[in-house]
């Protein structure tokens, strides 16, 4: 199974639109995962039929039993995350803010009598059918932590359930932190989707620096490249200095937003400048995949 993650650094550059289109265009059997678990959008383009849903239990959360609490304040003193607070209405009473609790259990160590760690559901994971293969996607409870753990669970499910697929295609999260690192660990290829803006270039450089700590093959695509040609040239120049192939340049095209509004991959929109550019991107990516495919046969 060749593992490919579509990522971006900067948000909103077109990861999901490109992932959905690549799923249509790349040959062979495929399993998909949406690892942007905070704000998962791939399902909005692939009309998945949910086969099963399972709860995701994140880290356990501390719970204080008010009947056993002696109000000594020791737990609050030791919590480094500010997760233990006094009840606004009853100031002598201590309680845990589940949004801030990281599940370290230090409070239980200092007060094993009144505090226990309780499992808490922080999301759910769905295993679905799409036209192009199975999709594993998830929903994090808004505000919950542990998105990196949920990303790990999503990837693991896809790999275990569909181990015989040729390709594992991941729609990644923006950023460079915990969920991104969890997404790119163990993948063979990352396709970074950027845009010609000073922010796009800045964020591209940072996310490349993170990827280089994991050694996947790095490829770049520039979306809406014609909105600021000179910055597109700057990006291409930087990539060539860094020995990173730019395998696609997609023009700004209203067809992209139209197809998102229809809830279908842009490849369903017929011939247009963006779809042609994405076909070119897919065929360049296929060239890149060839050595991996040969290796596996």
């Amino acid at each position: 199974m060749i593992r490919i993650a579509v990522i971006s650094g900067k948000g909103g550059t077109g990861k999901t639109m490109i992932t959905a289109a690549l799923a249509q265009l790349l040959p062979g059997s495929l399993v998909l995962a949406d690892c942007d678990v905070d704000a998962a959008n791939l399902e909005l383009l692939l009309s998945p039929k949910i086969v099963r849903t399972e709860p995701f239990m994140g880290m356990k959360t501390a719970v204080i039993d008010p009947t056993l609490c002696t109000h000594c304040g020791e737990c609050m003193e030791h919590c480094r995350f500010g997760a233990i607070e006094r009840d606004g209405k009853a100031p002598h009473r201590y309680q845990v803010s589940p949004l801030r609790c990281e599940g370290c259990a230090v409070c239980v160590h200092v007060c094993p009598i009144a505090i226990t760690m309780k499992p808490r559901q922080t999301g759910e994971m769905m295993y679905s059918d799409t036209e192009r293969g199975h999709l594993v996607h998830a929903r994090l409870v808004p505000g919950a932590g542990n998105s990196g753990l949920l990303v790990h669970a999503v990837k693991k499910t896809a790999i275990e359930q569909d181990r015989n697929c040729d390709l594992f295609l991941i729609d990644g999260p923006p950023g460079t932190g915990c969920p991104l690192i969890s997404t790119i660990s163990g993948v063979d290829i990352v396709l970074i989707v950027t845009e010609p803006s000073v922010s796009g270039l800045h964020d591209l450089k940072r996310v490349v620096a993170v990827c280089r700590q994991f050694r996947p093959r790095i490829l770049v695509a520039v979306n809406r490249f014609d909105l600021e040609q000179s910055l597109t040239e700057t990006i291409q120049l930087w990539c060539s200095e860094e020995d990173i192939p730019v395998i696609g340049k997609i023009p700004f095209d209203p067809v992209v937003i139209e197809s998102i509004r229809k809830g279908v991959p842009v490849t369903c929109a017929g011939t247009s400048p963006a779809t042609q550019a994405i076909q070119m991107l897919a065929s360049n990516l296929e060239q890149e995949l060839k050595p991996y495919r040969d290796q596996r046969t």
Partner: protein
Amino acid sequence: MKLAIASGKGGTGKSMVAANLAYALSRTEPVTLVDCDVEEPNLHLFFPAPATTTEVTVLVPVVDETTCQHCGLCGEFCQFGALTVLSSRVLFFPELCHSCGGCSLVCPNDAICEVPKRIGTTTISTPLPNLKLISGMLDTGNPHAVPIIRAAKKMAEGDPLVICDSAPGTSCPVVETLDGCDACILVTESTPFGLHDLRLAVDVAARLGVPIGIVINRSDGEDQATIEFCTEHDLEVMLIVPFDREIAAIQSRGDLLCRVRPEWQKAFTALFIKCSSLTGVEP
């Protein structure tokens, strides 16, 4: 007054709104702008200026192998799997450590002490006479954004008007940014992606009890679904910025809409006044 700019979906124009709001308001009053998108901070690109950098550190354990009895209690206690105790040494995985201090607390032999480890930086600059910019930046390869956000926000404590630009998403970095803010502006775009993620962002802000105002960015006129959602949830759409290639180009090259087209300053000042009315705090 402390205001957060957030979005759910990435790339909707949070930084654009934060930067222009700060620019417009700094014409008449002191403003502190805090870049809390520490994984991919961008505000400094719009306000280049000499900056002072401070390292942000967290505490991580160091095991004194001469006093360690390899009893394994620290490894058993660590909820994050950051310590593995072998028969003759202890393995530490710093990227898994949450700096809770539990290991040193449970060690019966006092063999663990905590030392600071750098995870990123904050920078502070004064790009305009009335504008202070604080940017948090996570070192690449480090997973823990939250301590940097906390450090950046702390540097703005006590300032009269603080604008915090959040990371996208709905998880811990967003919660840390919104926490303690008097109001937030959620920036969205009129696509099914934008609306889907706006719902989630509204949910997070509501859970934290932070009042919400809405900005629709890059509007192509097809805003009905977003406006209906806002009406249903009693949320005011406070500003609509149209899609316009020139506005996009201004933003792309790192310039500011309010600087290039000063007529926009009024719109951003009005946005701030609407936002202030959500909070009950005097603007």
